[in-house]
């Protein structure tokens, strides 16, 4: 049991399991999954679908945090991507009354992803070439990015009526939500890169000691640039899913507080903010925990305002458990006289 408890993924999994149990206790049909309208249906499916954008952003954030960086602009990038896509698709109708898109859908989505990638590259250039601290560099885009998104949408909320646009956020493939497919695919690709190529080792070296990694010949600058660019791309992808889900682009509120949720998901999953060791699976669990928490609060009939307080308590709990000093204190109190830790 002790060995199991020491596994890196133990605490995130236990927390998630606990949340699900609490849900099931109050609402027996919570864990029920059925097949309806040609796809899987149920609360759990809902949670997975809604958690997908957060999972995607958090995966990108994991790598950034692992190299001792931070990207607090992802919310703004979500807004920019949503704005670009919605703008290019437009809320227009064609002559016969059916909703149409101004530009081909692939073009609109591609342009949005390109814009997001450029944002990520911008952050990377500031951090790597200009040598800025990551918080500062991404703070700039966080502040200015929403302004840019609002500029694109002219301060309005653009509603999209073109049905193919909704596939990303609400569509299903083989019964499973499309968004979930994308998230899992992304996770699989990253996991493969981290374990079957030297990427994992390089990232852990850069995060552990950037100077030493550079002396050892690791191309730290190139890797950092790629990581930030990818984070932007991930945020763009999430932005498209979110926008598709709400069938619109709201530059003001799209992705609001998303960066905080993403950092929380990464930390819950066991990746330390100080960089080095990281866990992709942990991040996915962390995103699920956050989404399940929101769902739990809703289904329990507790006022949604409690959500923030519970998130705060969760963050404190996880942070304290991750702290070596706290664990030492706990050991000393639970087992007095057991000798120096």
């Amino acid at each position, binding site marked *: 049991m002790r060995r199991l408890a020491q596994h890196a993924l133990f605490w995130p999994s236990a927390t998630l399991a606990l949340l699900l149990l609490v849900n099931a206790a109050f609402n027996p049909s919570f864990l029920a999954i059925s097949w309806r309208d040609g796809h899987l249906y149920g609360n759990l499916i809902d949670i997975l679908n809604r958690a997908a954008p957060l999972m995607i952003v958090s995966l990108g954030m994991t790598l950034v945090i692992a190299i001792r960086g931070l990207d607090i602009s992802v919310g703004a990038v979500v807004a920019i991507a949503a704005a670009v896509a919605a703008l290019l698709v437009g809320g227009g109708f064609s002559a016969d009354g059916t909703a149409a898109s101004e530009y081909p859908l692939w073009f609109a989505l591609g342009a949005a992803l390109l814009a997001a990638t450029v944002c990520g590259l911008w952050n990377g250039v500031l951090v790597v070439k200009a040598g800025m601290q990551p918080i500062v560099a991404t703070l700039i885009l966080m502040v200015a990015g929403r302004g840019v998104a609002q500029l694109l949408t002219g301060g309005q909320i653009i509603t999209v009526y073109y049905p193919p646009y909704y596939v990303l956020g609400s569509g299903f493939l083989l019964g499973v939500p499309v968004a979930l497919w994308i998230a899992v695919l992304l996770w699989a690709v990253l996991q493969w890169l981290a374990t079957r190529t*030297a990427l994992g080792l390089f990232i852990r*070296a850069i995060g*552990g000691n950037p*100077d030493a990694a550079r*002396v*050892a*010949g690791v191309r730290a600058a190139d890797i950092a640039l790629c990581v930030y660019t990818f984070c932007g791309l991930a945020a763009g992808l999430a932005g498209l899913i979110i926008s598709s889900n709400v069938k619109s682009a709201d530059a003001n509120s799209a992705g609001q507080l998303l960066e905080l949720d993403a950092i929380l998901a990464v930390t819950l999953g066991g990746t330390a903010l100080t960089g080095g060791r990281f866990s992709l699976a942990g991040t996915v669990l962390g995103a699920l925990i956050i989404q399940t928490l929101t769902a739990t609060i809703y289904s329990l009939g507790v006022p949604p305002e409690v959500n923030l307080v519970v998130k705060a308590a969760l963050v404190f709990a996880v942070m304290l458990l991750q702290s070596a000093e706290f664990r030492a204190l706990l050991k000393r109190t639970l087992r007095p006289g057991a000798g120096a830790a």
Partner: protein
Amino acid sequence: MNPGAIVLEARGISRAFPGVQALAGVDLTLRAGEVHALMGQNGAGKSTLIKVLTGLCAPDAGTIKLLNSEVSLHSPQQAQRLGISAVHQESHLLPNLSVAENICAGRYPRRKWLGGIDWPETRRRARELLGRLGIDVDVTQLAGGLSAAVQQLATVARAVAGDARVLILDEPTSSLDADEVQALFRLIRTLRDQGVAILFVTHFLDQVYEVCDRITVLRNGRLVGEYACGKLDARGLVAAMVGRELVEAHKPATHAPAADETPAVLAARGLARRGALEAMDVEMKAGEVLGLAGLLGSGRTELARLLFALDRRDGGEILIDDRAVRLEEPADALRLGLAFCPEDRKQDGIVAELSVRENIVLALQARSGLWKFLARAEQRALADRMVAALGIKTAGIESPIGQLSGGNQQKAIIARWLATQPRVLILDEPTRGVDVAAKQELMAEVLKLAAAGTAVLFISAEIEEVVRVSDRILVLRDRAKAGELPGDAGEDAVYSLIAGGMTAGDA
């Protein structure tokens, strides 16, 4: 305070860390008006003992008596209040504050009026203190603008500013040149005459005999003995530290330096960097040990960093096998067959959280690139081989490298570069902070490499060491090339080359 009276008495000090017993029943006696040396190999327990005495670390067992009353030290602040001051190896000033402020921080003089800090008085006190110690520096200058050596002296000044009874100096001379060492020794003697008990930790044997009165030797966490300097000669001291007699490594008689006609593997022409190095030419031949000698600040490390492209060069070009190459960052150098073992292993060498295995394969993997990932089994085999070859003391190749002692970490870094089978190996102070026995092992390994055909650049502050192992010696002075000498030139020739060019007006 009567000279010779016991000021600090530590008895039976023991301290364990996960996996290692750092100290076991160690005694130490410090007397007023005495300079007491603490010596031992890497991993002997010196740093741990210092941490216990300064309140950074609590002992598992043992007592400490200060002026005959027992004390329990639980913080550096408390230790300082009791009169135990320390200048640690990593001690440095706060770069963003002025020198005056660094000296008086925590003990500012106050204005009578509203209780605010009296800045003019602060500056006056600092000036007076530094003047008394013979250190000439502008106290209003930010400490970050001073050279490391001057910062060191100011740190010592701060330590004694508060009427210390016990002064602990942990390897204070590692970054000082000969003049600065003498200035420090003058200061130490002054303090000694004032009745301070001084504990002096160092690796330099000649410095011990120059300024110390007694020596305590530790080995593997245990006390070997306390000796008076006059009663123990250098050979005996080394034997006590190591536990056996040593034979010095010399170039084997059969080793022949490269002939003049051998083409240069690496040739640098007009290599320069603004503010760091004047334009100079350097040539390295296969199978040859090129020694780099010079005083502190002469540009040794700067040259090494330029050759390895760690710093950007402002002028000149580097040719490998007579061909101009792209050499803009360390990754390029690695690809061209260069290797660089840096001076500061903690800062530029190890990645503490990664395992010994991962640290060793890092450079090799960096050269292979992202996609050609070495299989686990191959990595393990390589790491095992290196650990055996260099005698690295570790609990296993999977343990985090941060748990190893300094000397073993150094060996692991060298192993990392050896794994890449380099054509050119640059070693910047590879034996610094490494104990005597390990030093010999490392030097023997280096000579073996040269014999196998690697071009080696050997940098060391110990000129005697450079002269002993080099085939050719490049001498630097004030960031420029002073000249080149053949390997058998002798220390005097090196020193006169360094001194040469200085007229009476310069001294």
